[in-house]
């Protein structure tokens, strides 16, 4: 029995020694690194415009931003919407230039004469 106790104590002692030896290496294995990500800007929320009470009697612009070979989509859109909602004035307009270009003149026209806008399309 005494021999057993001795062996047990020795075993516990060895185990503790082993853990004490290994533990620092386990800690050393952890490293800290720097974050590679850049800084994103703050975002200002843009509230959406009030919605229309109805489409009837309104003028809605359909703006083709001029992605290549997609004009037929908007020609068809104007036809379909006119068929389905004949009380609304659906005005089809091409944005000037390519799909990169701005068109402040068109936006000014819409601001003055339009009640809403449908805009597209890429690809």
């Amino acid at each position, binding site marked *: 029995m005494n021999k057993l106790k001795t062996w047990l104590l020795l075993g516990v002692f060895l185990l503790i020694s082993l853990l004490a030896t290994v533990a620092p290496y386990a800690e050393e294995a952890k490293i800290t690194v720097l974050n590679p990500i850049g800084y994103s800007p703050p975002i200002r929320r843009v509230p*959406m415009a009030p919605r229309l009470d*109805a489409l009837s009697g309104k003028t809605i612009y359909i703006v083709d931003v001029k992605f290549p070979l997609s004009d037929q989509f908007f*020609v068809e859109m104007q036809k379909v919407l006119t068929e389905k909602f004949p009380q609304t004035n659906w005005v089809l307009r091409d944005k000037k230039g390519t799909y990169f270009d701005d068109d402040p003149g068109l936006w000014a026209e819409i601001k003055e004469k339009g009640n809403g806008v449908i805009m597209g399309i890429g690809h």
Partner: protein
Amino acid sequence: MEKLGKPTVPVITNVFEDLVKTIAFKKGMPDQRFVFVPHPVSGKPASTCREYLEGKDPITGKPVLQEIVEVLTKPLTEEEKKTGFIERPKPPRLAGPDAPENLHRLFLKNGWTDGLPIVLPTEEKVAEMLKGTSHKPDEMVAQMRPSAPHEAWEYTVEKVAINAVMAGAKPEYFPVILAIASTGVTSLFTSTTSFARMAVVNGPIRDQIGMNSGIGALGPFNHANATIGRAWTLISRNLGGGGTPGQTYLGSQGNNLNYNNLCFAEKEEELPEGWKPVHLQKGFKPGESVVSLFSGWSIIDNGGFKPYPFQEVMKRQALGFFTSGTGNCFKNGVPDSAALTLLLDPLVAKDLKENQGFKTKEELGQWLMKNTFKSTWEYWACRPDDLKKAQEGVEPFASWLKLPPGALVPVPVFFDSEKPIEIIIVGGRTNPFWQAGDFNYIASASVDKWK
């Protein structure tokens, strides 16, 4: 338009759902209402377009026409009426402490790498990299965005150093990497067309840091070439807000050149007399170290085996591209805007100078511009107004219409005169090969400024 007080319905094809919602959030409209239709619309006949319009939104399942009406008329929710700011917290400076394998996993999972193993950017390694420049770590270098509609991210010298460490670069390469970063040009442009980039280094820095301009210069054989080019990609992902497929990167197939961005040094020592190196062509002085960036899509290899004059073969190569940069004429009303960059082995440059008589790079470029013609089918496809004139009997178009199939229309309309053909000398003289790419020049930056 919403800011102008007009309710707006953006109509988008369905493959761009992630992209448009990301952009809307970053533009301050996280609740923007969209209507989606099947992709693509471009080139579809009117009957298909009508089907799309009378059908369902592939994302929501709702009828498209019903959604258009709802976007215009359904009253705003409280969320949609909100004003104020969304200030995004700065990313934490440190990551960890953790075991290296866990950090590798973290970097990969977060999309901070190019998929290949990286060098973990410990504080010690980054401090070592920062010794490669006299600029302070917190100095702002530039801002970069993946393309025009996206937001720009800012980054400091330290942030560039972190990504340079990750790429495996050495501190002595750091001024070149900083110079590239200072241009704000991304190597991972958003476009669906899968852009490629090229970085060409000139000046004494090439030898100082052991760059390769000889045998295998465009291949995986040189540490500086490899890691500088790679750093540009990591910078574009992590500091330029780019490289997230579906949101900030839409390249349908991607471009393998993005791994290293064709980074090499020009073989200035083997330039024929009278042929200037790239940096002098761009206005820098002899003795300056400069990096120049180019943008395109593809590269074609060609063996300069006689009896063909090399410049005649180059004309044929130029006509072989059908990418967004050249060979396309799908932009109605927009003139052709072809671009060409030639990477010539010194043997090819020597032949062009001594046997073909091109005294300068510019002479060769001008000759190619004046003598590269479109084939008849391509000409009429790109010039519908000229075709109409031809059919009405207007000369010289009417005569051109009588040319046999396969003939070339004898008028130089291929290249954009605003974009010179770029010619760069690189290679080890083992064979008279050259590579042609549909690349155009974007920007140059002084490396010396960043030492």
